[in-house]
């Protein structure tokens, strides 16, 4: 055991797990210089451990919780429930203000879908049963293809995304429009790509019908759950590509 090793091992020995502890002790007993270094180090450590505990300010917990309430916009998690539909099982996230997200189960499993939705929404999800108004809103879409959008909450989206989705919601069932059409309706004819991004980020597909927006050639382009699902939903609505 060398002097430099003893100095290096000093702090490890404090945990009492250093296997070379006995060697270090033997060296310390025989080496006055290392004893001195040990005393110096241990003295500093002792002083640090003896620093008086500090009390946080009174009512700090209350202040922290109040600060969270004012800083974090939406602090409570959404609820989420499975709802059967003609195109497969849907997972519907909701809160008192309305439906906040819809996801189609394409076989990836509940856990993966919930994780994806949580990331998308930026808040927690609590599995629960679908209340009647949620089931009714989803059923209304498949029955009339025009659900009550008062029951859908897209307030967490940017103003542009909200406007783009509202414009898409004016497209009658059974018909499609182009991304450019939506951009022009918004008064921003050059914002075609931005419309595309807004459709791609739509957290409530079906209810806000981004599936009715296609590219300028009439091709279905893309869809969160695949172009085949987009075609199927449009078919359910009575859309016939040949009519265009």
């Amino acid at each position: 055991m060398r002097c430099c090793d003893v100095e290096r091992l000093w702090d490890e020995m404090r945990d009492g797990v250093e296997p070379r502890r006995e060697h270090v002790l033997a060296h310390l007993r025989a080496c006055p210089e290392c004893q001195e270094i040990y005393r110096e180090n241990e003295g500093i450590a002792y002083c640090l451990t003896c620093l008086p505990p500090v009390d946080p300010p009174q009512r700090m917990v209350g202040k922290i919780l109040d600060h969270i309430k004012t800083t974090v916009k939406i602090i409570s998690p959404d609820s989420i429930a499975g709802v059967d539909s003609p195109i497969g099982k849907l997972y519907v996230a909701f809160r008192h203000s309305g439906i906040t997200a819809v996801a189609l189960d394409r076989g990836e499993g509940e856990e993966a879908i919930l994780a994806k939705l949580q990331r998308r929404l930026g808040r927690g999800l609590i599995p629960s049963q679908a209340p009647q108004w949620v089931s009714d809103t989803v059923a209304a879409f498949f029955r009339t293809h025009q659900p009550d959008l008062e029951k859908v909450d897209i307030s967490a989206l940017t103003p542009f995304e909200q406007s783009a989705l509202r414009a898409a919601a004016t497209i009658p069932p059974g018909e499609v429009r182009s991304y450019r059409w939506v951009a022009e309706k918004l008064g921003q004819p050059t914002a075609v790509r931005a419309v595309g991004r807004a459709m791609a980020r739509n957290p409530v597909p079906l209810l806000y019908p981004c599936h009715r927006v296609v590219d300028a050639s009439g091709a279905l382009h893309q869809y969160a759950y695949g172009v085949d699902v987009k075609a199927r939903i449009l078919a359910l609505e009575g859309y016939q590509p040949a009519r265009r």
Partner: protein
Amino acid sequence: MSALAAPIIGDHHRVTAPAAASHPLPSHPVPGPENFESIVDDYQRRLYGFALRMTGNREDAEEIVQDAFVRAYRALAKMDPQQRAELRLQPWLYTITLNVTRNRLRSKRPTNVALDALADPDALLNETQEGPDQPEQIVDRAADMVLVEQALLQLPMHLRAAATLRFIEGRSHPEIAEILNQPIGTVKSHVHRAVRILRRILGPQVGRIVPSDRPASQEEEE
């Protein structure tokens, strides 16, 4: 008396972890927004103490802890149930607090660290001699404490964090490695360097351990 006759090292002598750090914390089933109030309640004291040792300023420490809990809340709300179940809450909270502290101190001039804090020397001098039983005596302990607090604030931030977590917060090397996201060897090296620099700042006499059968007064006379 020779040093060998009065053993300078042994189990009776080693510095123990501070009492506050050794108290087990209540375990939260799975941390989340729904039980966040109890998380704040359980951890505010130690995170505030840590932030105060790192900044030396009570107002900064309070704002840091507040900010750290907001960040923790936001992050927890975004985690899926499995991530929350696997989360090691205590090191994670220390890490967030340290990150907020770093950001805050970076925006300030480091040389202007206020020493208001760590409190009032009179209170320290009047403090009773509590703490781990030590057969040795520490020369002029209460006065040393004030100097040690001030010296700690002079360390570079990474060494101050390592020394604070190790000796004041009573964390193990692996825990510190997790909090600082550093290899254990780096942590050990930083702790050691922190102690050496503190000794250099404080000089040889502050916090000097004197063998128990040799009174402090005798030591000073030598």
